[in-house]
């Protein structure tokens, strides 16, 4: 069973395994980081980790701090995002569906 579904996360089209949550799809997003050639491996790894950490943020708090999932089970509302126009949906409780449009970061 290797079905996939395709949805858009903040305008970017991604294909993910069927059955994963929207929260998982958001934090699994491929990282876009500037390619810097000629740096040593340790620095490259550090750059990769720095870019990587940003993926874990799903919303912005009322004072502007980035926040990511905490409870994973629908209690904390930290992973909430707008899905198909509906605001404040708990993405950890929502499975990815074909054609879904997810807007995070608000």
């Amino acid at each position, binding site marked *: 069973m290797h079905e996939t579904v395709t949805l858009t996360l903040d305008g970017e089209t991604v294909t993910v*395994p069927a059955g994963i949550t929207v929260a*998982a799809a958001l934090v699994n997003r491929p990282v876009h980081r500037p390619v810097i050639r000629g740096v040593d491996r340790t620095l490259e790894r550090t750059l990769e980790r720095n870019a990587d950490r940003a993926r874990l943020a799903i919303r912005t*708090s009322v004072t502007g701090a980035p926040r990511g999932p905490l409870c994973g089970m629908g209690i904390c509302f930290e992973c909430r995002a707008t899905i198909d126009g509906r605001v404040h949906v708990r993405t950890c409780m929502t499975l990815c569906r074909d054609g879904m449009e997810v807007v995070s970061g608000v």
Partner: protein
Amino acid sequence: MCEERAEVLVVGAGPAGLAAAAAACESGAEVLVVDENAAAGGQIWRAHRGAGVRPETRALLERARRARLLSGAVVFDAALPAARPHRLRALVAEGGPAERIAERVAEGSAEQSAEQIVELVAERVVVATGATELFLPFPGWTLPGVLGVGGLQAMVEGGMDVRDRRVVIAGSGPLLLAVAASLRSAGARVLGVFEQAPRGAVVGVGLTLARHPRKLAQAGALLARLASVSRSYSSWPLRAEGDGAGGGGFLRRVILRTGARDRALDCDLLACAFGLVPATRLAALLGCTIEHAVDRGARARRVVVDELQRTTIDGVLCAGEPTGIGGVDLALAEGAVAGHAAAGDLDRARAAVPRSRRERRFAAALERAFALRSELRDLPADDTVVCRCEDVTWGAIRTWRDGRQAKLETRCGMGPCQGRVCGVALEALLGWPLETPRPPLIPVPFHALADTTSETRIGPPCRPNSGATSAEARGWLEARPEGHFKAR
């Protein structure tokens, strides 16, 4: 809005709820199970992506095959004062009426579609709403990358990729080791497990395991899998630091204290929670008596039940973690008692009681071993955010007299989570009892509430002194002038 009627309504499809459903079916009752997740199994038997429903879940679903299961349904309201027949309202993320479990056993879940409100009408209700993790605030706990212990596990089971991630696990309880093993299987690098309880206390629990051979075998297998993972006792996180200015941004490292020694560990993820607390909101809404043993910490809160799991409200029973944290075996035992009792089969219910009593004793030993140390109360700094929804800090909260006053003055607990995180933390840190929740228990969109196709209305009036009824609250919400909302 449609209506679902049943003789016995079970809220929650974890071990307690499914055991209750199975027992009630076997006692001949007509049963409806509602659960907020996409698939049955609760948190402990969460359907793992790709692997489908767990065998334990499947076995209970088989026994409950005459019952109906409504997945993706969150109970948010009830007719008050609660009386037979009980009327609860659920927001359902999936269309159509509940299907028979037998048709669902294969996949344990169903397609989700447009949401709607379903009114649930039942003579007896079994509340099996499980537990949530106890999160205690410390500097940096709001950084992305700091999750709960069960929280990270749930995310991974939902498909989060943790391969090659450096993970520190901290907090308290048996869950720490179980999650460490499971994260390693998922490809994470577990840098260490930090338990706040002293080693001696935990070893003491190990000794009582001798009387529970099955648990002993499980513990042994777990420790064997974790042989190469460093385990520290009497250890707790002092703060998490981010990669941004002033320690903000995203999680970069955690500082942990063991005895008099502090150490810093660079990590990608910190999984931290201090055990489980009973999820008592629905029981409290229904008016069930809740024992608030605040002197023994948040984890001691529980729904008061008699030997047959009956609460103080006629026709409302409660089983599993809401009656006191006890783990899966106790939940199964209590669920069986509650299911038979809810079906009116008191003889079979009584026959199932001794098993639940034995499991309760083991749970009490666990509770003592993992008792929270007082140093944890000193972890938050004055600028540490405690209410994550409204960004209210420890310094702004701690000077008020109680939770109600802090809420009115600071908005603490007034965000979407309605105090599920900060209210429980303040219960543990300051001994402030949780307030009785008011409907709706989760944020419900107006278009769903405004569904006028309803032929039944949730009944008026409310318990004395319990605040507005749901209908009144809604009227008030609708009438509230725009300017009343907080300006941002």
